[in-house]
């Protein structure tokens, strides 16, 4: 039993899962209430700008999850333990969910801001490529029927697909883009102090919520793998 399995067992045995899910739910609800009722409306874009407090945390959640897939895939190829493969697949699913939310909330914001739901802008196109890459990753896992060869191929794809993440991040700097770069590291992002505070609250609560979802998905993946192992041993006996 790996260290991650022991941690998972302790997490559920101590009923920390109920506490974590409740905290995550209340956190996001609190964050949403702050976004809608206690954050000033943008003087230029109006109320539609508020979607930004959901759009950005989803994007950061997706990038973090894909970085996790990258690390877990390397670990799987290095030590060939199922636990890393399960972790990579769980992270990829959470990442794709976050990336899908980015691709849904983006066009909703783009229509009133730019006058079109979609433009083939560098940031938008590279994000779409990222989503397609990781949907392909999940399809590969599904179609390879969890064979050892399929797991290895998925790990290689998980490493290669991550190369798109820095491209998405840097696309607004490398090429001309109409997409705003809020986290550029430069002073003057155009956000007032209450807006920045709301952004941080939203970021932390959404990331915590995604982490809780990841633990749930990982627990399910581990249960499936353990059952598969027992079934294989039964067939041998």
């Amino acid at each position, binding site marked *: 039993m790996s260290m991650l399995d022991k941690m*998972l067992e302790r997490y559920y045995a101590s009923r920390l*899962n*109920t506490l974590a899910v409740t905290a995550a*739910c209340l956190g996001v609800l609190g964050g949403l*209430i702050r976004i809608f009722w206690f954050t000033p409306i943008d003087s230029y874009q109006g109320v539609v700008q508020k979607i930004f407090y959901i759009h950005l945390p989803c994007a950061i959640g997706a990038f973090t999850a894909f970085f996790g897939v990258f690390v877990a895939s390397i670990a799987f190829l290095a030590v060939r333990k199922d636990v890393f493969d399960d972790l990579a697949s769980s992270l990829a699913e959470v990442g794709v969910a976050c990336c899908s939310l980015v691709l849904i909330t983006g066009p909703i914001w783009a229509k009133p801001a730019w006058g079109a739901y979609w433009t083939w802008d560098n940031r938008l196109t590279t994000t779409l490529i990222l989503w397609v890459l990781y949907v392909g990753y999940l399809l590969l896992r599904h179609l390879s029927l969890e064979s050892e060869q399929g797991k290895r191929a998925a790990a290689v794809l998980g490493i290669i697909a991550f190369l798109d993440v820095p491209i998405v991040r840097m696309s607004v700097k490398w090429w001309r883009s109409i997409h705003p770069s809020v986290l550029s590291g430069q002073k003057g992002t155009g956000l007032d102090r209450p807006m920045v505070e709301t952004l941080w609250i939203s970021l932390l609560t959404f990331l915590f919520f995604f982490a809780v979802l990841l633990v749930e998905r990982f*627990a*399910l993946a581990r249960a499936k793998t353990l059952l598969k192992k*027992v079934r294989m041993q039964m067939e041998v006996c």
Partner: protein
Amino acid sequence: MEYLTAAYLVLWAGLFGYVLRLSSKNAELLRNVRILVDFWDTKVSESPPKKP
């Protein structure tokens, strides 16, 4: 707009209820799988080795 926002928050609340239910079911599933794995490990370790 207020109604839309309220509907959106209710949707989130529903989603959270679902995640909470999913989590308790996951805990139960993991507990049962652990019992099965432990039982099987004990059974295998107690059973005599097969004759060649």
